[in-house]
């Protein structure tokens, strides 16, 4: 059945089963591949998007429940200029890079609410995002750097 919601500022209507997760609506219906599939059970954070500014696991969010604007990694900035994206590039954070869209969305949501997070704040906000390559040291540093430039 049809569902209408806003993605990255654009109103969008899709015709899908009601329980189809937002992740697969984004990837396979809207062909926006930036949001990643890692576990399907909300345990890795690769699929993190913002709904109404909050970091949400899109693999656990049925499309029928989406009632506020969605922002994905493609919409975080027009040109990669968001301070978190900039810090990620300046510190050469990624290895395989697969988790980093989700990491960046979690970090951006954190900084939107807390402009100067402590390491403990970062641990709490980022603990749901797995980096299998183990780039946590650089993610932590990059969040501090982005905080300094927000």
């Amino acid at each position, binding site marked *: 059945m049809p569902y209408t919601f806003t993605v990255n500022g654009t109103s969008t209507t899709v015709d899908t*089963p009601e329980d*189809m*997760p937002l992740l*697969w609506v984004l*990837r*396979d*219906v809207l*062909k*926006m*591949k*930036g*949001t*990643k*599939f*890692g*576990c*399907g*059970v909300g*345990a*890795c954070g*690769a699929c993190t998007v913002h709904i109404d500014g909050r970091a949400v696991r899109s693999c656990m969010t049925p499309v029928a429940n989406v009632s506020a604007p969605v922002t*994905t*990694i*493609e919409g*975080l*900035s027009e*040109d*990669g200029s968001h301070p978190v*994206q900039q810090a*990620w*590039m300046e510190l*050469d*954070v*990624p*290895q*395989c*890079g*697969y*988790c*980093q*869209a989700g990491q*960046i969305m979690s970090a951006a949501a954190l900084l939107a609410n807390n402009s100067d997070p402590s390491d403990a704040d*970062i*641990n*709490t906000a*980022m*603990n*749901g*995002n*797995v*980096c*299998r*390559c*183990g*780039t*946590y*040291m*650089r*993610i*932590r540093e990059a969040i501090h750097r982005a905080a300094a430039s927000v």
Partner: protein
Amino acid sequence: MKANTDTTLNRRTFIKVTSLTGGGVALGLYVGTREGRSQFGPPPPAPTPDVYITIKPNNRFTIIAKNPETGQGIKSALPMIIADELDVDWNQVDIQQADLDPKYGRQIEGGSTAIPSNYTTMRQVGAAARAMVLEAAADLWNVPVDQLTTASGVVHGGLGRQATYGSLADAVSRLEPPDITAVPLKDPADFKIVGQPVPGVENFQMVTGQPIYSIDVEPAGMLFAAYHKCPVFGGVVESANVDEIRALPGIQHAFVVDADPDGSGRASGVAIVADNWWVANNARQQLQVDWDEGPTAVENTTRYNEQAASLSSRASEAPAGGGRGVANIGDVEAAFADADQVLEAEYYFPLLSHAPLEPMNSTAHFKEDGTLEIWSPSQIPGLANPARSAGIENDAATMHLVRSGGGFGRRLYSEYDIEVAAIARQVSEERMEAGLPTVPVKLLWTREDDMHFDMYRPAGYHFFKAGLDADGRLTAFRDFVPSVASVVPANEFPRGFVSNFMANSIPITPFSIPTGALRAPSTNGVSFVMQSFIDELAVAAGADPMQFRLDLLANPVPEPQPAGGRGGRGGGFGGGGFNASRAAGVLEAVRRMSNWDAVYPTMGNGRGIGCAFQFAHAGYVAYVVDLTAEGNGQIRVNNVWSAVDIGRQIINPSRSRNLVEGGFIEAMSHMMDWEITIEGGAVVQNNFPEYQPTRMAHAPSSIEVEFVLSDNSPTGLGEPSLPPAIPAITNAVFNATGERIRRLPMKHDGYRWT
């Protein structure tokens, strides 16, 4: 997976130039015969180049990246080497990922081999191209070559004369290429790109969510497939309700795929194909399959454990015949009888799944003309098995190499390519029969599929016995390994540094679980058991564990005769040319960095430091770990010091440091939580909640890395950084608490991260 230190010898290597339509010149590097071609069938009729550098009129340079990229950074590392010798700026270079083609030679990501097997050749390619540009400029200005200099892709000839490489491209295309081995190489002190922290070439695409991964590949019209296999290894479909599945909303195809164990190696299963993957995968809930589970269904981890314990009564048996993979030096039994102290200990580490974050997937299009096009994330791409699975000849298949979300050795096995090939053919045949055009199909596994159908890191059961003399010197060392495809440390330190050394193994049967290489395959578990038991010996000897290792390394014991069991896989004493002074070098470095001598005597009561070192894949890595144990089994890694010797040149220090940090973080997963167990011939664990990776809150406060530059050829770092991290942490736990960790994962003994 063997690590070569120099593979440029005995090759006939030459360059050929081709003028490009529209301007510019392509330089192709041709390399003589090598291993690895056989997998592609007969050699091509005419030689074709291995590497291309393209010089364009606008003075931009395209360099082909020939190896698959899984996050290790090879997509930039090899072109960096070429660009530096060519003497262009990194921002003038465009990197292009090569497709799978015999003309590129060995295109494998695995074994930390890309750097050692390509370093010198890549330098020669760049240097030879620069030499040709210089010759073209010398002809143009009629001056000797030795009066010319280069910088940033421009030739300078004095008197204000200068010419971009691009402006000389046409002239270069008419020159006779030089003998590649005779071209002088740069003094490494003059490197401008090699040795600099170069960011990942696709960082921008990653942070902006562009579709660069295998899972993102979506050629026009693509359908999505799920593939449902028997949870019991080797089980096959007897029947399935595919007609009912096909009738579900959104499902386009559903069919049984037969096993092909003697051909492509394909496993039996049910393919479900839909317009989007979620619908296809969701239909598995309605799927009813009768399985023939086969003989593996009787296997379980408890039985392996019981058999290992039972076999341990044979630990004193000498290896029969001195075969490969075992060792029997001196007389360990006599030495135990003479020893002042004899220690025995049992160690264990489990099967592991790789769990790269991007689940297995592959995309294929079987076309009307009977050809197959594949987009693969494989670390070891090959056409033979996918072609066989699709029932076509190798030369009817082509393959694009697509970046993958992590390898760790998992993508050295390419079942997804094999499965998608068969699925794509069946889908296209059904569509052609219905008068529809063929379409590409993406096969995507779930995380649960990924965990259930891996090639697991073999478990290790180790029954140790060692003797110390009255002065605390090691006189005998024995390891007995009841084996489940396990690594037997027959060539590992302290072999070569103790007079009596035995390593023997007896297989546990039946054991039918598929096993394979996980990051640092020969040492990722063995380093834990060996470097932990060495630590036990140091404590028993009343010695400082750091000094105990250094004393052993300083006193090699020549072996009486060439013994059986040489030739380990990359790591180890005999296999890869263990160099005690390089091992001592990294230990001395972490000793200094961590201020070990001052700190070690002050530890205990919940604060500890531990050390370990490992030789793996031609590299030497030592760690010191500073750890707090807060009671109730809660532990926290505070600071980490790492010293790394991978030769005289670090290609890209940013990436190398990242690989050390990542190796350490991965080791923490192995140590605390990761374990695959078997029940009824199937894997018990399903997803990350039962297989917890290290998370942000567990990450150390700092990981300090120092590269010890030794006069050896550069080697890789994807693997060596992992193995010694585990025993460095567990030895620190002992130092803090007095509890020796002899079994992984530690969660079973009540430990958790703070």
